[in-house]
């Protein structure tokens, strides 16, 4: 099936253009330093000269919760940013350069072309987050205590779904326009919109942002399930990619 041929090419591209390496390095670094930051931050604060007497005693001792929160906060911010940066040119750049036209005059469906782009980014993010998670788990073990592996795995799985939503949204934006810059602007708008709606009191519980909260709860043993957010996120991924395909199949290149 030609999907796998294009996926192979997409993965080769991620490797050759060092995109895979960048995503892997950024995520691994934040996986590694998150527990370290959680451990060292109180000591760093206490070491500030001229700190009023007694204030240092108020700074709490670092805990496992701090390590997990730090990890999720860092990975959420940088993961979403990377999702946007790495996907924004995926289709727009190919249209702009003419490579999409060149490839699509050969036996390659537009659905396979789009899906392979999403799948390649999904593979890259999965691999990178796995390395980040292993780094975080190991450092947390060294500095605090062992995280329960099954719930930590669930946390990372939920974060991945969250990233996939942003990748799919950015691929849609990249399909709608012809230039990378316009795709970036549109994707940033979509990001703000999803985050904005996600922060609303009621409706927010159905949005991808809730997946990160659910993941933290799972990892710390105080799970507050957010199944609706998971289903909505999966639905958004399918919807974004579906709209991208509907638009792309009608576009002239």
């Amino acid at each position: 099936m030609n999907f796998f041929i294009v996926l192979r090419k997409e993965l080769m591209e991620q490797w050759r253009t060092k995109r895979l390496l960048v995503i892997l390095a950024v995520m691994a670094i934040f996986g590694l330093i998150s527990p370290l930051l959680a451990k060292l931050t109180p000591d760093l604060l206490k070491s500030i000269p001229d700190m009023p007497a007694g204030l240092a005693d108020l700074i709490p001792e670092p805990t496992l919760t701090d390590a997990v929160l730090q990890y999720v906060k860092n990975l959420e911010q940088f993961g979403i940013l990377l999702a946007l940066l790495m996907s924004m040119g995926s289709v727009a750049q190919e249209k702009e350069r003419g490579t999409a036209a060149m490839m699509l005059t050969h036996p390659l469906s537009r659905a396979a072309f789009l899906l392979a782009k999403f799948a390649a980014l999904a593979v890259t993010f999965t691999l990178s987050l796995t390395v980040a998670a292993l780094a975080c788990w190991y450092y947390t073990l060294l500095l605090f205590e062992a995280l329960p592996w099954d719930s930590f795995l669930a946390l990372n799985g939920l974060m991945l779904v969250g990233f996939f939503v942003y990748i799919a949204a950015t691929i849609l934006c990249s399909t709608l326009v012809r230039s990378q810059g316009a795709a970036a602007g549109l994707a940033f708008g979509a990001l703000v919109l999803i985050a904005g709606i996600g922060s609303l009191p009621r409706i927010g519980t159905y949005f991808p942002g809730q997946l990160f909260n659910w993941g933290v709860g799972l990892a710390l043993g105080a799970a507050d399930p957010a199944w609706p957010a998971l289903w909505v996120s999966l639905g958004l991924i399918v919807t974004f990619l579906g709209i991208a395909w509907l638009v792309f199949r009608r576009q002239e290149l």
Partner: protein
Amino acid sequence: MIQITALHKYYGSVHALDGLDMTVEAGTVYGFLGPNGAGKTTALRILTGLARPTAGRASVAGVDLVADGRVLSRRVGYLPEEPAFYPWMTPSELLDHLGRLHGLSSAERSRQTRELLDLVHMAEAGKRRIGGFSRGMRQRLGLAAALVHNPEVLLLDEPVSALDPLGRKEILDLIEDLRDQCTVLMSSHILADVERVCGVVGIIARGRMIIQSPREKLMESYARPAFEFETVDAASALRWADWLKVQPWAAAVRLEKVVVRITVNDIARARQELLASAVAQEIPLRRFEEVRPSLEDIFLQLTDRETTL
């Protein structure tokens, strides 16, 4: 092999194709001529499925364009005017990737990659990154990419426009050799190239086919006798061209620096008067020649673009 009927294409208010009709028989090398903006590229893009017609019908090798693009892409090879590739790939990787898309086996891909790179004289660059290639190299590679699946129909949009004279000759020879293997539809603004390799010529202007005919027949029917002069200085050439253009026996006059080319309606009278007028007006001539009418003369005549100076 290629059949286009009453093809229309609008881009907003621009009527790029205005009822284009075209027939390309199997096994021919068809030269698709027309001034810039005439609709050549639009027609080729429609034939590849990259653009959709507003109205009309087109089929290639019996396959309707709208019906099944993927079937068509297995039978058609396309070289755009400015072929674009992934800069991180090497030519060998590109041809291998395209071979995979066309379902070639590993052995077939390997053989095809080697043979095609030899064919376009890029064997030594096979392992270099495409990102550093010149436009001419990209055009050669584009031709190899279009041939990777041995297509029945080859669509070439200005295939030699970026090549140097030697490269142009090599690729034109190659296109000539393809005559026995596939049907070639080649657009070009270099009329000498079309004259050299194309057996059939179609001339398009403002989105319409003006004429399509075997090249020899076209030359016989439309070519008017022509003369070419080279003067010593540009001022004399301009002065004489101004005089020539108002003569009743002159059909068209073109001036390129010191060279004046005149197409005539009445060759006998032209033979009598041309040299006499040059002497009378004291035009210092370096060369005077009765020339064989070229495809360019016919093209300009038919597209109403003769320069009357």
